[in-house]
């Protein structure tokens, strides 16, 4: 490593250490222009043209959806890209921009977004805006108005959206769908006083109505922008009735009132309408809840318990995995580093097969072999024993470490062999001449040298195993499940698999809590990185 880094400063492309004068720069531009072929220019113009066209399309779509902030970002980014590539200067930016764009969106932004979600209640029951929650609540509590007049309706389709074409008893014709309230139209095709078709829409036939009857009976078209006015529904696809919600929404006061029981639900800032005795109307909406998720993660006994043992197991798993794979790999490297031995190539190729086999498949195959009642290990190797390899909390951990040893030792074997052979032979000869025994040579000379050159690899291996989601998820799925915990977590879960399960499995998805866990992991990883950077001084060697 030192050879490479020291090279950098000496012979790397250092065009001119001092700033070029104005004249030199001008000369450089002229030379550049003269050398840049027409082909390059053409490619550049075409690429930029395509990009700008795409950006323009995107801006139209975004403006149509009233996403002003995102529109602004797209406009600025497109402008910036054009400015960078159309100018003659800004050479480094021309090379960095493509990668940096992806880095910013899918690495930096999502990190920031994760932090933000960690401070919200985002998750099942809280995944929309307040307006969406209000309309969902209102429509779920709809009840038919007893003396509702009968409206003649026709079901229309536009794209995939179902619409109702309504002829009022007084002859007025209106159209609307679940999103758009009823509004008057005047160009409907009439048939005996009933509107039956509208330009731009297709009228559903009787068979089509039957085929989609579930969707049609569920369709509620709001009467007006005010949700308290109720909605029109049709039980049969030909006649509609007015439905009014049992809930009454008072926008000014921000309260929901149940008209049957007169219970008042208020918006108390918790992201759902809550009654005086704590009952909540679901769905709620997404709000910033401050540090609630962190407080829950760190103080709620039933969550803190799992978090603590998962964290401990994550460290144990990563450390033991690195240690076992490294020592087995080192041992094998020593064993097979003897020139007198025949067939070393043969052994070597067969031993690195586990490394070549795609790792997600390995974990799945081992999961099958370790199956308690049907697996190969219990049924064949142990003659029908019922060892709970993957279902006993302790044994499952051991199994994971064994499988990870299988997965990881070939890599360590390869790098240890390389490192061992790069140790200068003179050191060993000198030590032997001085009377050192082979074991002393190994322990006092070779091992320290190996550790110095392999330390960064061991740290990288630790970091990899710290987030080795695939192995855990595919071998045990974190199981056996800890039934005492309110979140879906098991005895072999590591932090990252716990985050995944809290966010994406189980009855309730809690994105907020999962993101809070993620931030806790970030902090842990950051501390480890800082310490390991300090130790290896990796950053200081950058020039």
């Amino acid at each position, binding site marked *: *490593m030192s050879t*490479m880094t020291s*090279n950098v400063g000496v012979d*790397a*492309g250092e065009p001119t250490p001092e700033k070029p004068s104005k004249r030199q720069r001008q000369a450089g531009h002229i030379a*550049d222009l003269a*050398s*840049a*072929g027409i082909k390059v220019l053409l490619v550049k113009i075409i690429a930029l043209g395509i990009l700008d066209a795409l950006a323009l399309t*995107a801006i139209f779509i975004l403006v149509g959806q009233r996403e002003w902030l995102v529109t602004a970002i797209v406009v600025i980014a497109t402008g910036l890209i054009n400015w960078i590539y159309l100018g003659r200067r800004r*050479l*480094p930016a*021309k*090379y*960095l921009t*493509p*990668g940096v764009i*992806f*880095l910013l969106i*899918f*690495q930096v932004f*999502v990190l920031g*977004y*994760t932090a933000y*979600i960690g401070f919200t209640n985002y998750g099942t029951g809280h995944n929309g805006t307040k307006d969406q929650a209000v309309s969902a609540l209102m429509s779920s509590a709809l009840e038919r108005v007893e003396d509702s007049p009968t409206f003649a309706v026709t079901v229309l389709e536009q794209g995939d959206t179902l619409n109702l074409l309504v002829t009022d008893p007084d002859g007025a014709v209106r159209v609307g769908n679940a999103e758009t309230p009823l509004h008057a139209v005047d160009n409907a095709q009439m048939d005996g006083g009933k509107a039956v078709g509208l330009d731009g829409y297709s009228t559903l036939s009787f068979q089509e109505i039957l085929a989609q009857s579930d969707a049609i009976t569920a369709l509620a078209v709001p009467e007006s922008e005010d949700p308290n006015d109720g909605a029109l529904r049709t039980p049969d696809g030909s006649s509609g009735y007015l439905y009014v919600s049992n809930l009454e929404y008072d926008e000014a006061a921000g309260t929901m009132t149940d008209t049957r029981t007169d219970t008042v639900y208020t918006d108390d800032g918790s992201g759902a309408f809550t009654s005086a005795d704590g009952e909540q109307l679901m769905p709620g909406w997404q709000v910033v809840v401050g540090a609630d998720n962190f407080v829950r993660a760190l103080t709620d006994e039933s969550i803190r318990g799992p978090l603590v043992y998962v964290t401990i197991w994550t460290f144990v798993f990563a450390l033991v995995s690195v240690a076992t794979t490294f020592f087995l790999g080192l041992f094998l490297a020593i*064993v*097979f*580093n*003897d*020139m*007198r031995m025949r067939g070393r190539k043969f052994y070597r190729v*067969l*031993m*690195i*097969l*586990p490394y*070549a086999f*795609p790792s*997600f498949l*390995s974990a*799945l*195959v081992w999961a099958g*072999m370790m199956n308690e009642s*049907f697996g190969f290990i219990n049924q*064949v190797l142990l003659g029908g024993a019922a060892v709970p390899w993957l279902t006993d909390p302790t044994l499952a951990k051991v199994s994971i470490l064994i499988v990870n040893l299988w997965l990881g030792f070939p*890599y360590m074997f390869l790098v240890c*062999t*390389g490192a061992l052979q*790069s140790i200068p*032979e003179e050191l060993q000869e000198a030590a032997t001449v001085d009377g050192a025994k082979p*074991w002393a040579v190994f322990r006092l000379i070779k091992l320290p040298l190996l550790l110095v050159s392999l330390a960064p*690899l061991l740290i990288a291996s630790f970091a990899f195993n710290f*987030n080795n*989601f695939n192995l855990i*998820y595919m071998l045990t799925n974190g199981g056996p499940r800890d039934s005492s915990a309110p979140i879906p977590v098991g005895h072999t879960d590591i932090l990252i698999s716990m*985050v995944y399960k809290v*966010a994406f499995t189980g009855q309730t998805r809690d994105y907020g809590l*999962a*993101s809070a866990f993620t931030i806790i992991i*970030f902090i842990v990883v950051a501390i480890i990185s800082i310490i390991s950077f300090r130790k290896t001084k990796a950053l200081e060697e950058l020039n």
Partner: protein
Amino acid sequence: MSTLTKTPGADSDDMSTRAITSGPGAGLTGYGTYEKRPFNVGRWFRATGWRHLVGVVMIVFSCFPLLFVLSSSLNPKGTLTGSNALFSAIGLDSYARILSSPDIPYTDWFVNTLIIAGITALATVFLGALAAYSFSRMRFTGRRVGLVSIVIIQMFPQLLAVVAIFLLMSSIGDWFPALGLNTRIGLIMVYLGGALGVNTYLMYGFFNTIPASIDEAAKIDGASHARIFFTIILRLAAPILAVVALLSFIATINEFVVASVILIDPENQTLAVGLTKLVSNPRYADWSAFSAGAVMAALPVMAVFLFLQKYIVGGLTAGSVK
């Protein structure tokens, strides 16, 4: 370059017999005796025999899961129990089953995986090489900060932010359905977020070993920066580009978390997601069909890996050691 060839690439073959006392057991033998002696089993065992014993044990350990998959893939019976008698029945029924079953879109998974991993690998190399070129050949404000930030950002793997990625992709899908959830392009874009990471670093180190005098000579001859990059640097750096592409390809094939969250419909999924779901309950799963799928998925990867093994390990070591 020097590290690449020196450390891992150096197989033990190019070593001379100087390495005799390299192991703890090696010194026990008659080191330094040259006259021919009669064959002695005990001495042979102490010198190299025990090494063969270790080798055999390790081969059994490393190969038996692989033999198990191979055997169950050839087993016409579907269940996990039926696969326990190794090589008791040989047939290609399960291969036919997984390729033709209407419930298992295996060929779709295979094609999706190849497309996603292939494009991701190529684009990663291209984006990384562009960035590495500017870091290696140009001096600009923020260069050091840029290099350091790349090191730091790569400490936080993308899969940690999977919740945010899911929510971001679902909003993108609301605006532009072709790029959002359940699309291959969307997934590739997410993967490219990690393109400027360890790969850039690997290439940066390699570019630094290409003498700048070559660039300068080309410049004097009138080549533009783009021409130098595409026709000189990229060609000279071909070995490291191949390594980065291959590592990125294999990593993408193995990636599960982000793929499982973004690709929803079965026919859009990758092998990692599809095959995992296929055996989520090993008791009822069609184990032989899964094994057949696993063998077909693994063979190309293993072949390429073993073929280019020296370079891959070289790349891994160089990258991390750097």
